[in-house]
């Protein structure tokens, strides 16, 4: 049993595939793990390094959870997040926490207590909410509720949970009686969509402009870099305000949504373009690119086989890192009232709703979406950082 393969005597049997009997010894296990490392592609190596970073892995699972909850938002939400799903009986209602036990004993099925509200002479004509501890609304899973289209095309009316006898608002309701729980998940989805469209627009622009700039160089590069710098100098907030002023107020929510994404993309591209250009410039001068050219490879072949694969990992990292800025910009825009507006559910709109003393004093549950917002941005930042470290192992003290 030899542990090291003899380079002078190639073992042809092993190259043909997996039909080789391998005796499992420590040495062979070790050898296979090494072989796995040696035959690992750059992508696999990046993934292996990424997995070792705990913070990034936690962030990645948080991110995955948030993205999935965004995708399945209609299914997770017991109520329609728009005005159509408002609960007139329970405006500005406090969160109802599902429980298993109360003074009347325990049950296996979670329930919430029924709520009664009253406005009368006795309450000085203000709404007063009283919890009726004797009446339980049981929570059922996979209940039928408002109709929606999953992924935009599968018509469904099943929801993860609901209280068919009454209502359940886990995160409470807003002043119109809309369920904040449902709104939050829809808002995450909207913000992710705006971010994705924004990043995509920015990315396509960056790839084309940065790509032309980096590949051709010379005066084309100089001119394009001047334009890029010019765009970079435009301050974001005044530009947002100007554009928002141009936006006709009669635009529908969808149109508004599209324009916001467009603006974000148009402002976001210069940074990305610069990075694409830098990657191209460094990779283009690598000797292996010259080697390919010397065997007669066309520009197309060089770009496809060498340049693109060489920076896809970096580009993915850049995209992930620029994502939270898109979400932040959208939020900022909506927050100052220039972006999306109620009744569209976006994180920015939800954030805007917390800007009153009334909320701070009386309706603190409005802040729950803020927690999700912070989690989303943090998750993106950590995943982006982790990916960057994994893609570029020499950035830290490894060597």
């Amino acid at each position: 049993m030899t542990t090291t393969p003899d380079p002078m005597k190639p073992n042809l049997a092993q190259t043909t595939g997996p039909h080789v009997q391998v005796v499992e010894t420590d040495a062979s296990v070790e050898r296979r793990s090494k072989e796995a490392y040696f035959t690992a592609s750059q992508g696999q190596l990046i993934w292996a390094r990424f997995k070792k970073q705990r913070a990034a892995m936690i962030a990645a699972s948080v991110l995955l959870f948030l993205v999935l909850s965004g995708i399945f938002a209609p299914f997770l939400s017991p109520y329609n997040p728009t005005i159509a799903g408002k609960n007139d009986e329970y405006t500005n209602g406090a969160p109802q926490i599902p429980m298993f036990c109360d003074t009347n004993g325990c049950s296996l099925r979670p329930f919430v207590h029924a709520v009664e509200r009253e406005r009368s002479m006795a309450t000085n004509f203000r709404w007063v909410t009283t919890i009726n501890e004797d009446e339980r609304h049981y929570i059922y899973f996979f209940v039928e509720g408002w109709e929606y289209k999953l992924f935009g095309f599968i018509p469904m009316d099943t929801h993860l949970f609901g209280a068919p006898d009454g209502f359940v608002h886990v995160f409470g309701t807003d002043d119109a009686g809309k369920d904040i729980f449902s709104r939050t998940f829809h808002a995450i989805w909207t913000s992710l969509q705006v971010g994705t469209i924004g990043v995509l627009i920015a990315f396509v622009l960056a790839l084309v402009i940065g790509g032309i700039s980096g590949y051709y160089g010379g005066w084309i590069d100089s001119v394009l870099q001047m334009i890029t710098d010019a765009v970079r100098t435009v301050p974001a907030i005044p530009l947002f305000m100007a554009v928002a002023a141009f936006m006709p107020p009669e635009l529908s929510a969808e149109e508004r949504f599209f324009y916001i994404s467009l603006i974000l993309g148009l402002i976001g591209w210069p940074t990305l373009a610069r990075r694409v250009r830098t990657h191209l410039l460094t990779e283009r001068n690598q000797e292996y690119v010259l080697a390919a050219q010397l065997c007669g490879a066309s520009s197309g072949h060089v770009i496809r086989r060498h340049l693109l694969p060489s920076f896809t990992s970096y580009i993915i990292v850049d995209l992930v890192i620029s994502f939270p800025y898109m979400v932040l910009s959208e939020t900022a825009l909506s927050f100052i009232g220039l972006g999306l507006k109620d009744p569209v559910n976006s994180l920015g709109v939800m954030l805007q709703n917390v800007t009153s003393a009334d909320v701070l004093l009386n309706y603190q549950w409005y802040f729950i979406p803020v927690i999700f917002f912070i989690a989303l941005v943090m998750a993106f930042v950590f995943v982006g950082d982790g990916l960057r470290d994994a893609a570029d192992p020499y950035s830290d003290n490894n060597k």
Partner: protein
Amino acid sequence: MTALIDVQNLTLKFRTDEGLITAVDNVSFSLNKGEVMGLVGESGSGKSVTAKALMHLNAKNAVYTPESKITLHTDKGPVDVLSLRTPRELNIVRGGAVSMIFQEPMASFAPAITIGKQMVEQLQLHGDYSNEKAKRWSIEMLDRVGISDAAKRFDQYAFELSGGMRQRAMIAMALSTQPKLLIADEPTTALDVTIQAQVIDLMKDLVAEFHMGIVFITHDLGVVAQTADKVNVMYLGRMIEEGPVREVIRNPKHPYTQGLLAALPKLDDLDSPLTPVPGDIPSPLERPTGCVFHTRCSKVVGDVCKAVEPAERRIDATHKVSCHIYDEVPA
């Protein structure tokens, strides 16, 4: 002769994604004042890492074993280099008692500061120099290493100098603090042969004049023959042979040293075939058991080479080798 630096049982590993990688394995040597030690080895032999350890200069992921000990004998008594922690303590060795010159001179000059300013800063960091005195001494040093028009060069930036001049300026800067020990990490490898010859000459003159100890790291046995008093040969982190330069070059004992010498193309006999050391240098992940060289050795004596790490044997009073084929000669 007084000892300048003592290295005992230096073992150094790096923590990497692929696990702990041994870079230096139980290396001991000592160097006297005014002595030039050639540290010879190929890539991955751990020669640079060993030298950096002398200044406690290795990256954060380096792990020293507790047995490792490096003692530097300064004017103020012995210093345990590996126990130094704070920047103030480390200043004693870094740039103070020990200086280092590199293969790539640009690496030791900040691009945006003039050469003179850097030299003055370094002097003032390590000694009590007025601006005027520091400048005078710096120009004198530049002049001393053969830089023409030193006063003008003093105000220039590193990129304005040619490769050979840069190397000279770096040597001037390293020597201006009058270190006891100079570590030269492949200082001539990136230079053309004609410039290399000039730099070697310069180094020889400087040793004679400043009387410091030099650790000269190189993979070129010719350079070693021209500069060193004694030679230590390293392979995969092990010190496999050490002795006076004439002994090691004329009468190499370790099969690896013999192989290295045989692999050199010789100018006086063009017909002699080139004999490579067979095989490839193992990857650091596949460190051989027993004698680290057994995978490429032509003189393997049975299983003992594969299983047992050879201890250092004394061939004569000064010549030591780590190989199973020799028996220790009683001193």
